[in-house]
């Protein structure tokens, strides 16, 4: 028996399932990955096969260990970070999902949510779970399944089926599934269901009643860092020490443990989360209050979250729909051919405007076109759109919390784009910092698991693992920043009111 020297993280994301192994210094020593299928059976629907995700999990675990030449006994613990709000219901007796997983990108519950918002309980939701009802969260999807899978409501009441977001599904399967699987969720994932009291961290009966959801179907809510059970398969004998929704995991992985510390993760969308300590920030600007993390025996720490729906997705659109570039990183090469945007602005309100404006009748615009504008200027405008959207959310967050930003910690794939990071720093007029380990999501899950088993002693010890890998300082002059900001604002105005009665409406949705 060797002394366990590493901690593993399972990062179950929208497109793939990965396993990463970290050492005591928080350095990554192995990574294995498998993608799963995306199903779009109808417009607005987006599904995953939960069984495929579980099968991929069982594949990546030994692959990651093999890469580093490790045995399960070399692992002190494993943690899980997952795509949030994706909804799974499975049969407790057979272990099989009763329907495809409805993912966070799915908009089928738009009508149900509209009804809820017109009804008497909308304020109750806002008050108790801290969220205005939206199709973005898990509970409306669960309601949809209970309505559309024959006999499911009855079976739920009888305790024959189980509901969970992806971490619940993986933990249940890893701890034995039909043979004694542990049915739990963590506070961060539970805080995105619309069913949890954000203060007590328990399911709230009034909210369950409002959506007619039987309590028998729900997992038990647990802290983020706690041993939920030990793996019987995949990593036999290894304790599962933590679980986290991916964005909260990144906040934790970036060691934003103090009030006011914030990070922005740039992926398909971008997610800015700020630690608000014991305060649940009520937002005047369309931000979401959420649980940042809860450690065993300690009061929960809260966060406020601003989501930018279209960040990397705009670069993907530029690549795949406009075919202007062949790979995403090439956008920087193209953009660097010119000094500025040539007067061109792109506002990617593809499904309406999100935080802080929330205008569902808005649609995207490309404005300022003249014969002077080339595709290089368009490339600039694509990158600048992400920077200005970040600025809008940063301003909203500073206004809501009364906490001024002194810098922004960033992570995610787009941080490899130097021009973008410089522009973010320029428009925020703040330094932007990238950590040495860009895998903040996985690192956060590993940290939680490691804390639970004493592999890391405390939060302060984890801070020592954070190292700055790059820092961008603002270089833009104030007059230029003001001029560009005014132009961006004018461009945003042009998106408003585009959708009128009689148009085919693609419902605006929040991304998670």
């Amino acid at each position, binding site marked *: 028996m060797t002394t366990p020297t590493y901690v593993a993280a399972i990062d179950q994301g929208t497109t793939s399932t990965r396993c990463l192994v970290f050492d005591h*210094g928080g*350095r*990554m020593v192995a990574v294995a990955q498998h993608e799963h299928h995306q199903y779009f059976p109808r417009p607005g629907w987006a599904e995953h096969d939960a069984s495929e995700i579980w099968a991929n999990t069982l594949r990546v675990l030994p692959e990651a260990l093999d890469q580093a030449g490790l045995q399960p006994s070399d692992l002190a613990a494993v943690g899980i970070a997952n795509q949030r709000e994706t909804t799974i219901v499975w049969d407790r007796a057979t272990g099989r999902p009763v329907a495809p997983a409805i993912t966070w990108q799915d908009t089928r519950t738009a009508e149900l949510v509209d009804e809820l918002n017109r009804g008497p309980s909308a304020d109750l939701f806002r008050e108790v779970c801290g969220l205005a009802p939206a199709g973005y969260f898990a509970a409306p999807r669960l309601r949809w399944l209970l309505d559309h899978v024959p006999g499911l409501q009855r079976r739920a009441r009888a305790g024959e089926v189980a509901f969970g977001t992806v971490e619940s599904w993986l933990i249940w399967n890893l701890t034995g599934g039909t043979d004694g699987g542990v049915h739990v969720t963590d506070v961060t994932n539970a805080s995105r269901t619309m069913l949890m009291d954000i203060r007590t961290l328990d399911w709230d009966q009034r909210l369950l009643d409002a959506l007619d959801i039987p309590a028998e179907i729900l997992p038990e809510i647990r802290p983020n860092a706690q041993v939920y059970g030990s793996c019987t398969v995949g990593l036999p004998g290894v304790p599962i020490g933590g679980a986290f929704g991916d964005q909260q995991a990144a906040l934790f992985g970036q060691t934003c443990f103090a009030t006011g510390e914030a990070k922005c993760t740039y992926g398909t969308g971008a997610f800015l989360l700020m630690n608000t300590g014991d305060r649940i920030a009520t937002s005047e600007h369309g931000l979401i209050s959420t649980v940042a993390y809860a450690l065993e025996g300690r009061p929960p720490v809260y966060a406020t979250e601003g989501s930018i729906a279209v960040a990397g997705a705009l670069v993907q659109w530029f690549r795949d729909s406009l075919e202007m570039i*062949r*790979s*995403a*990183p*090439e*956008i*920087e*090469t193209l953009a660097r051919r010119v000094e500025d945007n040539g007067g061109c602005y792109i506002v990617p309100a593809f499904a309406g405007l999100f935080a802080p404006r929330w205008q569902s009748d808005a649609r995207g615009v490309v404005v300022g076109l003249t014969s002077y504008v080339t595709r290089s200027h368009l490339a600039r405008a694509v990158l600048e759109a992400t920077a200005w959207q970040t600025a809008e959310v940063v301003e909203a967050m500073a206004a809501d919390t009364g906490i001024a930003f002194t810098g922004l910690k960033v992570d995610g*794939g787009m941080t*490899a*784009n*130097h021009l973008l990071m410089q522009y973010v720093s320029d428009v925020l007029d703040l330094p932007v910092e990238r950590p*040495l*380990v*860009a895998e903040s999501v996985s690192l956060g899950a590993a940290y939680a698991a490691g804390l639970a088993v004493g592999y890391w002693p405390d939060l302060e010890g984890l801070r020592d693992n954070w*190292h*700055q*890998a*790059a*820092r*961008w*300082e603002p270089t833009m002059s104030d007059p230029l920043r003001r001029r560009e900001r005014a132009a961006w604002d004018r461009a945003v105005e042009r998106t408003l009111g585009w959708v009128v009665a009689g148009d085919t409406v693609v419902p605006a949705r929040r991304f998670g």
Partner: protein
Amino acid sequence: MPGSIQSIERAAAVLHFLGAVPEPVPLGELSRMLALPKPTVHGIVRTLVDVGFVVQDPDSGRYTLGEGLSRLGETLDPHLLRSRSVNWADGLAARTGLEVQLGVLAGQGVELLHHVFRPDGSPQRLRVGELQPLHATALGHVLLAFSPAASRLQELVSSTGSTPTSPVTLTRAVQQAFRRGWAVADGTLRPGVAAIAAPVRHHLGIGVGALAVVGPRERVLSVAGDPVPALVEQVVAAAAAVSAHLEDRL
């Protein structure tokens, strides 16, 4: 004048034929159209498949032009190279405790395409975009040794007392880098600063960039002044790992 080489002519004919036909072509068809025996044509197309100019459909066994051909005129996008390097460069900095630089050829110099700070919490300046002289850096020596069409150096300006300023010294250093597969620089750009660099190679082994650790002389070199072997090993391994991932799906 030497005569033309028959097998190259025939290979060119195969490529022209495949390029002219919109659908994958069976071997028999190729053989008939080129008026050559099947084994001869098979040998040619197998070779073309091996070098990536032709692909064979696994189900039908038919042949069509490969991606390798359309990629011939393309140069590797520098930002794609950076994007592929980020995780390995981070890992290299984390393991060595040193600053990491990724450089590419830019005219008479090395352009720093990527820069990872030394992970010690000290204030540092991001050097991305900075131009450094080829002859005075480990990155430059690696690029001169492994990259094609390396620009001719005009003036070997001295940065420190250790900068190689004679063509003979520089040539010796570049040749040594080529033989070893890595280069070392000791105070040639800034006094007291040493670096070890290794090539990042595209297909066929062509150098497309160079990856280096840079740090105080006493961290990079032994007391005797030789590069620390474990560092050399890590730099070479990281550069090789980036090379291996250049072909990954985007």
